[in-house]
C-alpha cells in the first residue's frame, strides 16, 4: 500500500452563529463527518456545489482552519492539535493554491519576494537560481522575477500561485478552484501544467472544483460532496461512467456538453440545496432526490461499496462507494 499523505478521520467543521439567548444556539454544519484518504501520487477531485463544504474541507485539510471534531493526519502524524511554529513541517508537506490569484498574491511584493516567502517561513534563504527554477517549472521566464502581480494576466498569476506553493517541495497540493477564474483557453494551459507537474515531481493533488469536466480531466479519484458529507467516492472513471448516487447522477447529467445534438438524458433537480444550519434528517439529499422514500428520512446512509465495483472495499478502500439506500444499478 502506498503512503498516505493525508488522512481525514470523521472531520467536522461547524461555524457558530450568535443569536439572542432565548434562541437555540445555531451552527452552520459546513463539514459534517468526512473521511478521506489521499495517497502518494494520486489526484483526488473534490466536487460539489456551493455550500457543499468542499472549500471548508480543503482548508481544514491544510490546517488553515481547525476542525470542530475529528482528526487530520498528514504523512501519518496526527496534526489536528498542532499550531503555530510547529505547523512548519506540516506546511512543508502540504501547500494550497487558491482560486483567485489576484487576491492571494500581495500586490506590493515582487514575484521574487512572493516566491521566497514560503522558504523564509521555513527559515531558509532561497538562492536566485532556486527561484528562477521555480518560475521555469511553471512555464514563466526568469525576467518575471522582478515584476509585480498586476503586470501579469490571470493565467500567469495562477502560475505564480502554483510556483509559490511548489517552493517548499510539498508532496501534496490542495488546489481550491484553481482554474475557475480563468478563460477557457487559459484554463486548459493551467490544467495541463498541473498534469505535467504531477508527472515530473510525483505530486499529489486534492482538486476542489465545481466544474465536473475540469475535475474529470485531471482526477484519478472523485469524492462528491453534498451538504458537508461525501455522498459518493471512487475511481474517476467509475464515478463518471456509472454514478451510483442519485445526486452524482443528476449533477453529471446537468453539465452541458460542447456538442450540439447530444442527448443528455437530463435529470433536472428541483429546488435548492437546503441550509447547512438545519440539514434534513437522514440522507441530506432526500429533499431533492427523485428516489427518496420514507427510510431516507430515518438515518443518514453511510458510504457502502457499490455493486459491481472492481475493487473490494476495506477500511482503506479506494473502491467505488456511495451513501444511498437506493443506489443506481450498475450499467448492464
Amino acid at each position, binding site marked *: 500500500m502506498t503512503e498516505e499523505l493525508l488522512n481525514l478521520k470523521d472531520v467536522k467543521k461547524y461555524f457558530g452563529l450568535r443569536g439572542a439567548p432565548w434562541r437555540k444556539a445555531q451552527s452552520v454544519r459546513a463539514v459534517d463527518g468526512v473521511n478521506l484518504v489521499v495517497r502518494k501520487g494520486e489526484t483526488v477531485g473534490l466536487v460539489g456545489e456551493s455550500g457543499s463544504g468542499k472549500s471548508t474541507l480543503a482548508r481544514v485539510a491544510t490546517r488553515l482552519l481547525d476542525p470542530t471534531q475529528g482528526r487530520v493526519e498528514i504523512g501519518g502524524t496526527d496534526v489536528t492539535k498542532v499550531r503555530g511554529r510547529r505547523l512548519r513541517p506540516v506546511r512543508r508537506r502540504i501547500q494550497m493554491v487558491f482560486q483567485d490569484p489576484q487576491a492571494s498574491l500581495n500586490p506590493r511584493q515582487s514575484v521574487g519576494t512572493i516566491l521566497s516567502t514560503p522558504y523564509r517561513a521555513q527559515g531558509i534563504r532561497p538562492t536566485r537560481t532556486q527561484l528562477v527554477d521555480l518560475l521555469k517549472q511553471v512555464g514563466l521566464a526568469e525576467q518575471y522575477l522582478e515584476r509585480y502581480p498586476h503586470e501579469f494576466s490571470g493565467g500567469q498569476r495562477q502560475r505564480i500561485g502554483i510556483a509559490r506553493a511548489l517552493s517548499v517541495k510539498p508532496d501534496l497540493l490542495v488546489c481550491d478552484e484553481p482554474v475557475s477564474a480563468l478563460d477557457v483557453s487559459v*484554463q486548459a494551459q493551467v*490544467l495541463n501544467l498541473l498534469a505535467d507537474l504531477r508527472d515530473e515531481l510525483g505530486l499529489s493533488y486534492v482538486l476542489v472544483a465545481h466544474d465536473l469536466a475540469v475535475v*474529470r480531466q485531471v482526477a484519478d479519484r472523485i469524492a462528491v460532496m453534498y451538504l458537508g458529507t461525501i455522498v459518493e467516492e471512487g475511481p474517476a472513471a467509475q464515478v463518471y461512467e456509472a454514478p451510483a448516487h442519485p445526486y452524482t447522477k443528476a449533477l453529471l447529467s446537468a453539465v452541458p456538453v*460542447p456538442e450540439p445534438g447530444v442527448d443528455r438524458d437530463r435529470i433536472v*433537480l428541483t429546488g435548492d440545496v437546503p441550509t447547512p444550519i438545519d440539514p434534513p434528517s437522514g440522507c441530506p439529499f432526500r429533499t431533492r432526490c427523485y428516489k427518496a422514500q420514507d427510510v431516507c428520512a430515518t438515518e443518514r446512509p453511510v458510504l457502502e461499496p457499490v455493486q459491481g465495483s472492481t475493487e473490494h472495499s476495506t477500511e482503506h478502500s479506494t473502491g467505488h462507494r456511495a451513501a444511498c439506500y437506493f443506489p443506481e444499478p450498475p450499467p448492464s
Partner: protein
Amino acid sequence: MAEPGLTAPILEVHDLHVTFTTEGGPVPAVDGIDFAVAPGETLAIVGESGSGKSVSSAAVMGLLPSNAQVTGEVLLDGRELNGLPGDELRKIRGNDIAMVFQDALSALNPYYTVGWQVAEAYRLHHDVSKKKAHERAIELLDKVGIPDASRRADSYPHEFSGGMRQRVVIAMALVNDPRVLIADEPTTALDVTVQAQIMRLLDDVQAEFGTALILISHDLGVVAEVADDVLVMYAGRAAERGTVRDIFFRAAHPYTLGLLGAMPRVDVPPKPRLTTIPGTPPTPGSITTGCPFQPRCAYTHRVGERCITERPELTPRPGQGDHEAACHLGRRPEVLL
C-alpha cells in the same frame, strides 16, 4: 427553437464599432461586427474576456458610459436605435429589449423587495397603479417558478438563493413581454444543477413568447445546447459565425477550434492533454494590424506574412447557411495539422 433563417430578424446589428476614449487614447473594444436574431431564435455570442461580447450587448441597449463612442446600425424591427435620444431609447429598454445579467445578487437592488423591483420595471413602461403593477410582478415571479410568489415578493434579494435570484432577474426582464432578451452569462454564477433549471426556464419562455434570445457566454457547453446561431468573437472582431453545427462540427477558424479543444468534457474519458491556445487573449486595442489572433495561432506559418499585414475579413465557408470565418487559411484548419 425555430428553424434559423426562416423568419425575418427582429434585431439586426451592422458594422458595430465601440471605441472608449481613455487617458491613454482611444481603445477600440468592438471593431466592426454584424449579427442578427429572429423571433424565437437564439444567437450565442461566444468569446473570452476582452473579446467585446458584453460591450456589444451593452451598446445595443445604449447602456455604455459616456466615454464610449458607438457607430454602426442597431435595427430593432427596422428602426434605428443607435443615436436615438435618451427618452426614446428609454422607452425601448426593458420594454422591447430586456436584459438578464450574470450576477443576480449585484444586479438586484439590495434595498428594495423583489416584488417592488419587478413591479418597477412594469410601471416604467405601463401607466398602471402600484397595486396593479404589484399583481403583475407576482404573476411573473410565479411564472418563473418562485414558489409562494405572493409572499416571497415581499422578500429582499439577499433572502433568496442564487438560483431564485436569477429567476427574479428573469421575471424582471420578462415583465413587459420583450421581443428581444439579452442574457449576459446568465448562468455563470450558478451551480450546475441550478444552471440546468435556468436554461430550461429560458427555453420555456422562448417557446411560449417567441422571444429572440441573445446569449452571451464563454461556456461552449451551454452554447451547444441552446443556440441556433453562434458568433465567435475575438479581440472585438468576429472570428467566425454560423449555425451551431457549423461552429461545433465544421469550425473553420483556428481560434474556434482551439476553444473547442481546450474545453474538458464530462461525458467522455479525458484526453491525455487538453489542446491549448498559447498565450492570453490580447487587451483591446493592442493589436492593430493583421489578424488579432495571429500571435497565438498555430497555423500562421501555413499562410505567412499575410496574417501579420492583412486583416482577414469574414469569408464564406462550407456549411449549413451563412457559415463565415475571418481567417486567411482557406481550408479547414484541423485537416492541416
